[in-house]
């Protein structure tokens, strides 16, 4: 094993330019993939954080009176998936509105009657699953006394559509860059192999097995993949450190949200994938050469 490692390191040194180009290509591909993953991870967290963790408002019809409340709560609770139900009367709602609109309260004084409905604020347990929320909302809406339910369906629906579009584009781009890196790695190994044809021929003639001949190429591919992955992630980390605080400040106007770097699990997955990519490129090349 030490022999193979030494050999691989010597080969990398003797083909520095070719190896550097391959490592840079892999790192660029990994960078593109990592940017998408960073976007998806953070966007996922935005969705998680929407509406303070799954709060929805159930607006009740004018016919509602306080005696109906216990029965209504029981009915909603029986639908399951709900953590908390808080009743907000129309009077309380108006007070809250007045508090929130302190400078513009004059027009509220001109109101002859309270236009706001009684409402229930609920906290949904599986708020990460938009489909589940939709189904629950539909069930709640079928209750006679319920007039409407608001859970951010308008903006969240639109946001998810765009998010899913990005996701598909992201997958396609990741696939494209993965193939490109694979192609480059395979060709680097092929070039390295052809540049050492004499060496390989001599190895064969002195009784070297195929494993002995191939092993340094595999190690070279794995090293290229690993270093490419590290370089790509390193570049992303530096960029992240430089721009993340600026983005967080810009977003702060709309939502309290801090952009986080990739999770350890994702980082490990990326490094593993890029290492695998180096190995696989080598495998494809050698399979073709030794056919």
């Amino acid at each position, binding site marked *: 094993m*030490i*022999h193979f490692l030494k050999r691989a390191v010597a080969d990398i040194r*003797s083909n520095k330019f070719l190896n550097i180009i391959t490592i840079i290509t892999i790192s660029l591909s990994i960078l593109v993939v990592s940017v998408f993953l960073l976007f998806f991870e953070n966007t996922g967290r935005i969705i998680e954080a929407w509406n303070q963790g799954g709060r929805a408002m159930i607006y009740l019809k004018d016919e509602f009176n306080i005696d109906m409340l216990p029965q209504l709560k029981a009915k909603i609770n029986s639908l399951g998936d709900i953590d908390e139900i808080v009743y907000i009367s129309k009077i309380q709602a108006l007070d809250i509105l007045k508090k929130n609109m302190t400078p513009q309260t004059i027009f509220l004084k001109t109101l002859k009657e309270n236009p706001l409905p009684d409402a229930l604020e609920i906290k949904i347990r599986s708020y990460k699953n938009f489909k589940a929320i939709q189904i629950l909302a539909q069930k709640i809406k079928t209750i006679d006394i319920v007039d409407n339910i608001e859970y951010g369906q308008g903006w969240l629906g639109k946001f998810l559509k765009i998010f899913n579009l990005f996701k598909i584009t992201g997958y396609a781009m990741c696939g494209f860059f993965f193939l490109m890196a694979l192609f480059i790695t395979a060709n680097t190994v092929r070039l390295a192999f052809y540049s050492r044809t*004499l*060496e390989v*021929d*001599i*190895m*064969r*003639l*002195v*009784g*070297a*097995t195929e494993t*002995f001949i191939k092993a340094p190429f595999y190690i070279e591919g794995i090293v290229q993949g690993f270093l490419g992955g590290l370089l790509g992630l390193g570049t992303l980390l530096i960029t992240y450190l430089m721009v993340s605080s600026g983005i967080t400040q810009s977003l702060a106007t709309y939502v309290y949200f801090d952009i986080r770097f990739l999770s350890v699990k994702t980082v490990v997955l990326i490094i593993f994938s890029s290492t695998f990519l180096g190995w696989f490129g080598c495998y494809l090349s050698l399979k073709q050469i030794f056919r």
Partner: protein
Amino acid sequence: MNENNNKNLMIRLFNVSKRFGGKLALKDITLDIDQGEFIFISGPSGAGKSTLLKILYLAENMFEGQILIDGMNLSRISSSMLPVLRRKFGIVFQDFKLIPTRTVYENISLVLEAAGRKPAFIKKKVMQVLRNIGMEKKAAAMPLTLSGGEQQRVAVARAVVGEPSIILADEPTGSLDSTSARAILDFLAEYHKKGVTILIASHDLHLMKNTIQGRIIELNDGRMIRTDIMP
């Protein structure tokens, strides 16, 4: 062909022919070589000397007839057994075939590394062979910085370091002056004394005659026209 009756038989060729396209490079060669024999293969250029050596270690693998090497039938050898066959040989190539990007030491140690020997053993053995051939001070040199004679000595060192049972040398003295050529042949003669079978293809029969007693096999136009004990 029962090799049990020939316990010392190392190489047997039976009706061996080799074609390159439509041209026959070897024609019906039948030959037995015992363990420890010293064989000179002579003949003019294009007689088939190199081809005969090449089919023995399967550098040329499409041939007619039967070849047995130390009990291994070359017609039936699997790809996994090919390295095992080749480790029986130490080969000195006409053009040296040294790896230019590796040092003298690394060129020689390659044989032992390929055979899976331990690093300590490899170091000891390679230095011993380099000492024997008078090249220990050139261990770290690159092949292209050496003279033709020195390169050939490295090629011979690589051929013997794995302690093969057969040494094949294709024109080992072809590009050397008579002193260097003599040194190479004397070195090979030392291994012959240890019981190694040696086959040398050379057109320089005069030099061979003054080296060691052995058998001469003369080829012409791919045919074996004479086999004699050298005086």
